[in-house]
């Protein structure tokens, strides 16, 4: 950006490149002057209480939200928590969300509907117990015999040898063989007792023979002019490894999973998206920058912290500020045990002792140079 005058270099790169692309070179300086003026006007003034305004701006519309869950029209048992419960879930940073789900976008030929049902079915998790007609323990031979249901196998398009190869290597120390009538599971260590066989039986039931672990339901739908797959249950890591999946757009609504797979910046964006989705869905109008601020405070330590007394509030420096938010006595006693000092630097403490709060007019202080005596 050599031709940008030095006084305008502080402007964001995106703004500069747009001005450079659209304004004629002769008027570049004049346009930049206007842009810079506008840019400065749009900035938040020093001392503006952005945090409180963000909190109220999200909190007040939330009181008007209807406490309902959103239903997928015509599809049985697929409803997602929306509305206030969902916002609370996201902002609290809950690890186990009530309805984990994914929107899987696909690469070109598949996104137009090619093999869409097949792909969807291949993602859906099928457990061994779903296809077994009988699971018996043969104590004489100290093995477990699983008799698959041929009709159910055909339904998901699998064969018995296919099932066996899918099962192989899933549990350690067990050999899997296909016999004439059944699939046999045998412990490799012969000396293991009967108890081990019973334990193995429980493990065997939940073995995944097909699909991606964790995805309990799939639903191919048309969104816009392409087909996507909506799932109940998430497994972002496995799904993103699939070749037909459009990695750039596929999302999960589990923020902690996004953090684990894609990192904290992705999680921050996911928080913004999830909160904004609910607010938009309810027909409310909240500036996205409020959500961005909230997401930033939740993520700035590198891990996701919910806005709870165990999360962001715990990180507050001031003892009085922490005590003013839930379980005061616990915080006060902990503070006294550690001999903490409260420097009274933020809002709540100063309200409590009735001193000017350090925002707005309370931030300004008078500095005066003492006259030197000659």
């Amino acid at each position, binding site marked *: 950006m050599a031709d940008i005058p030095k006084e305008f270099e502080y402007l964001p790169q995106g703004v500069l490149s747009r001005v450079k692309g659209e304004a004629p070179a002769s008027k570049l300086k004049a346009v930049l002057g206007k842009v810079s003026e506008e840019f400065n006007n749009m900035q938040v003034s020093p001392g503006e*209480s952005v945090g*409180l305004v963000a909190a109220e701006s999200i909190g007040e519309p939330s009181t008007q939200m209807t406490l309902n869950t959103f239903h997928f029209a015509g599809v049985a048992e697929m409803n997602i928590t929306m509305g206030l419960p969902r916002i609370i879930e996201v902002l609290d940073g809950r690890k186990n969300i009530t309805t984990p789900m994914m929107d899987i976008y696909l690469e070109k030929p598949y996104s137009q509907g090619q093999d869409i049902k097949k792909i969807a079915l291949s993602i859906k998790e099928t457990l061994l117990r779903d296809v077994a007609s009988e699971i018996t323990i043969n104590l004489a031979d100290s093995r477990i015999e699983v008799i698959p249901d041929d009709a159910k196998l055909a339904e998901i398009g699998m064969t018995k040898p296919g099932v066996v190869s899918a099962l192989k290597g899933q549990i350690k120390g067990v050999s899997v063989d296909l016999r004439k009538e059944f699939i046999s599971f045998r412990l490799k260590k012969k000396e293991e007792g009967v108890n081990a066989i019973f334990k193995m039986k429980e493990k065997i039931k939940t073995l995944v023979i097909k699909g991606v672990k964790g995805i309990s339901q799939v639903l191919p739908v048309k969104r816009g002019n392409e087909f996507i797959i909506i799932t109940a249950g998430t497994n972002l890591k496995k799904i993103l490894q699939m070749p037909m999946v459009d990695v750039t757009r596929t999302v999960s609504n589990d923020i902690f999973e996004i953090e684990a797979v894609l990192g904290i910046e992705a999680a921050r964006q996911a928080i913004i998206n999830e909160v904004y989705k609910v607010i938009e869905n309810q027909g409310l109008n909240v500036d996205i920058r409020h959500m961005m601020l909230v997401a930033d405070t939740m993520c700035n330590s590198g891990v996701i912290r919910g806005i709870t007394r165990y999360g962001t509030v715990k990180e507050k420096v001031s003892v009085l500020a922490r005590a003013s938010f839930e379980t005061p006595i616990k915080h*006060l*006693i902990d503070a006294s045990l550690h001999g903490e000092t409260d420097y009274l630097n933020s809002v709540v403490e100063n*309200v*409590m*002792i*009735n001193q*000017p709060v350090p*925002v707005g007019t309370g931030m300004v202080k008078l500095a005066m140079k003492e006259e030197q005596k000659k």
Partner: protein
Amino acid sequence: MTDVYLSGKYLGTVDEPQKFADALIQSRRAGQLSANVNVYYDREIDAVNVESLKGRLRRPLIVVKDGQPLLTADHIKRLQRNEMSWSDLIKQGVVEYLDAAEEENAYVAFFKRELTRQHTHLDIAPLAMFGLTTSLVPFTNYNSAQKVNTGSKNQKQAIGFYAANFPVRMDMDVNLLHYPQIPLVKTIMHDIVDYAKHPAGQNLVVAVMSYKGYNMEDAVVINRGSIECGLGRGSYYRPMVAEELRYSGGLVDEISVPEKDIKGYRSEHDYRFLEDDGIVYPEAQVAEGDVVIGKTSPPRFLSGMEEYSLSAETRRESSSAMQHGEAGVVDTVILTENAEGNRLIQVKLRDDRTPEVGDKFTSRHGQKGVIGLIVPHADMPFSASGIVPDILFSPHGIPTRMTMAHLIELVAGKTGALSGRYVDGSVFDSESEADIRKELLRLGFSDNGLETMYNGETGEAFSVRIYVGSIYYLRLKHMVANKIHSRARGPIQLLTRQPTEGRAKEGGLRLGEMEKDTFVAHGSSMLLKERFDSDKTTVPVCDNCGLIAVYDEYKKRAYCMVCSESETSFVELSYSFKLILDELKNLCIYPKLKLVNKY
């Protein structure tokens, strides 16, 4: 085979369920079964339910046989002559109560003229579907259901002639309307409940028009001349009670004019209305602070120094006095005793409640509003015949609320007033609007209720014709005089030193947590500090230990109770914060204040 259930419990089966149910009903009508039993044959699930338990909502209906009601003209005649009673009708099976379930099997005619051979029952009157107060709303069937509800609720709050023996009653917080009237537009319920003996409203001349914006947002403009003639005038009664309690040790309260040497003696001026027995005389005009019943109580704690001091016998002042903002006239004084045999003094206070700006009025259709302006009689609009309305009602209250009955009552009331008769407005059974309008036309008025009216201030005719007529208006018990409240300076709480809360304690309006947030959001820190300065205090703080020190008023010196010889500095903080520090000390937490110079 049909199952039979008695009160929800399986009993057995019958082969012909319809016949079985009919037989049960017949025996009930014949008096062989209790009238409280109801039978319901459910064809869908093929079961007969016999109900006899309490808690079922039931309503009376006239039994119909072969298209003819069993209630005959002869019955009615005998009823009128008091030779028969309601319970006789039930015993004879002429009238029976059906519950919600048995109603499913019944075919009920609304009016006698609608009866066919298929009908099993006849409604006694359409009015029977409503409750008492709802039945008092005229032309109910022309109103939206919601407004019928609010209309009937409002009537319960109306002030009127609530009891004929009011002079000898000691009611808490009651109002009395001085000039109640019988409504011109009535329903049969008004006759049934003898409404004429305890009316609760007045027939007012209403003009539907706006007036300088003073009747916007449901307000009404009222004619001062009408108020001076008695519109809505009333009295407010409030009792004051004092009891001579007995305490342990043979000590008793004493109702008397307190001696000057007692603890908490007010001032001679405050006791000036008391007679020798320590009670006010009737018709005394008492105001704020005046003692109504003088009373002294024995000292609360007989311990410590008081026991030995000369003033040990000192009694406490515990008189009943007029509270802040209260005034009135002593109406009645009653001397009696309560259940424990203690002497009991009851004083009934009366105060005028002349309508003023802010008092609430309503018609019987949920069209409530407060007075926005009281206009001199001379400035009110008037009609060609010289009629000056009592109330100006804004037309904007009509479209969204759809209270058509309010408009019909206006014309009906006008017709009734002009022809000198009562108009029947019973639900579904009222006089027809067309007839009322025809009658109004015959009386020489426009049949649509419109009249040319003139501006009271300029005398010019309004360019539109105004809808005027008579509506029965109710004055509601919510009055400004009982609710007005303001505070600049006033009492504070002992514990927190913050201002008291609530009207009774002359309190302020709390600037709460959320209100605080608005100040922070605006960045107005200094204003916020000023608002929270209500419990500001200056305390000395020890420079050494950081605890709050004490100030010795005699030596004019502050010293620390812990360090004694250390320096102290004065700090300005809210008293509630000082309390928090004290509470922390109670938790065995040492809150040390490290002082830094602010400048």
